[in-house]
């Protein structure tokens, strides 16, 4: 069952692509030359992110030049899903009002004459029907709307459930870091993504986000690498030009409830991750930044 008919919105959420922004060339990173001119507009960031309408309206920040930021990351293409509450055809565009239960939003879809004549859109986008919209966020006279380049009718309502789960997952991933890799704790099965809620405590039992995680049960030398990777993928760590020092990473681990790692262990783990290509050193041998791997 693939609900990701467009781009990377579907199955693979943890492969490093899809909703994670691509690093911009020429912008102080290993992927481009230094000092190059900064690309303007959306080409710099080819991510596709799922949002609830309320999140898109209330929690995104306006940058300049019609660029927006949410959860600490610039957003490019977005996808929302909702019920059509009103539909209006004009000469070259169709205006929809969409409501997904969290809030409502206007969606503008530019259509050419051929589509209008075939009358496909009016049948698929009826009031009361669920649709998935792919598009870009716009602001006009202080009001936010979506300019859609694809509007797909929802035929399987499981896609609605999937979409909301995807919104939650992406938000948590970008604000709290990647969940730990599925290394088994002693005496416990590793939580598997896609397993039922009754069998799993998402982001909790394995200690990814819960402050009261059973840290004493975590195997030495294994989880520290996953925890550090999560720390170095935190939004403020990714945004910092030089990354985080080992001391700062140690402080973040303590805030995450991983107080049992000492500074020397953190340093050794950072060196290990640097050798594996997960981190790279920046201004000195004790300051690292994530490669995004």
């Amino acid at each position, binding site marked *: 069952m693939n609900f990701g008919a467009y781009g990377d919105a579907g199955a693979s959420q943890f492969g490093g692509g899809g909703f994670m922004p691509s690093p911009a060339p020429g912008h102080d990173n290993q992927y481009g030359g230094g000092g190059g001119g900064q690309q303007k507009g959306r080409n710099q960031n080819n991510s596709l992110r799922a949002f609830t309408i309320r999140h898109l309206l209330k929690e995104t920040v306006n940058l300049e030049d019609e660029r927006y930021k949410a959860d600490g990351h610039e957003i490019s293409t977005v996808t929302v899903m909702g019920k059509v509450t009103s539909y209006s055809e004009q000469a070259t565009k169709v205006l929809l009002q969409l*409501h997904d239960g969290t*809030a409502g939003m206007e969606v503008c879809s530019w259509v050419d004459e051929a589509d209008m004549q075939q009358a496909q859109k009016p049948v698929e986008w009826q009031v009361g029907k669920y649709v998935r919209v792919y598009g870009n966020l716009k602001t006009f006279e202080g009001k936010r709307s979506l300019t859609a380049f694809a509007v797909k009718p929802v035929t399987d309502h*499981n896609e609605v459930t999937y979409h*909301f*789960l995807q919104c939650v997952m992406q938000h948590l991933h970008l604000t709290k870091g990647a969940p730990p890799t599925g290394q088994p704790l002693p005496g416990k099965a590793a939580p598997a993504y896609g397993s*039922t*809620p*009754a069998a799993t405590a998402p982001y909790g039992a394995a200690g990814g986000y819960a402050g009261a995680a059973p840290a004493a049960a975590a195997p030495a030398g294994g989880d520290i690498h996953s925890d550090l990777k999560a720390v170095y993928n935190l939004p403020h760590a990714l945004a910092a030009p030089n990354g985080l020092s080992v001391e700062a990473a140690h402080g973040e681990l303590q805030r995450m409830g991983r107080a049992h790692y000492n500074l020397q262990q953190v340093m050794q783990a950072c060196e290990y991750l640097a050798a594996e290509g997960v981190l790279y050193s920046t201004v000195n041998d004790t300051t690292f930044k994530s490669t995004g791997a």
Partner: protein
Amino acid sequence: MAGIDEAIPRVNFETMQRYHGRKVILCCQISQIDNGTVRVTTSDKGEVTVVGGSSPYEGRFAEVVGTVVGPTNIQEVEHTNLSDNFSECWGRRGSASW
């Protein structure tokens, strides 16, 4: 369906109790239809009676938008019929509420 800023929480039987007098969205399995009254089962095995609907219910599942008027009663505003393959996870605990 709603004003632009109005949030309509998605509920199951348990969380529905917190929204008495408010509009909610309930995805449910249709148990019985009887003279304009529809008895439905929620994902957490609760039984709810939906009254006031005008359009017909078709299939096994529906998404009901309505006002909670009692512990087991919803006054329908509108509903959407869902396909029969809805929710492979049906019967597991809880639905997302926003």
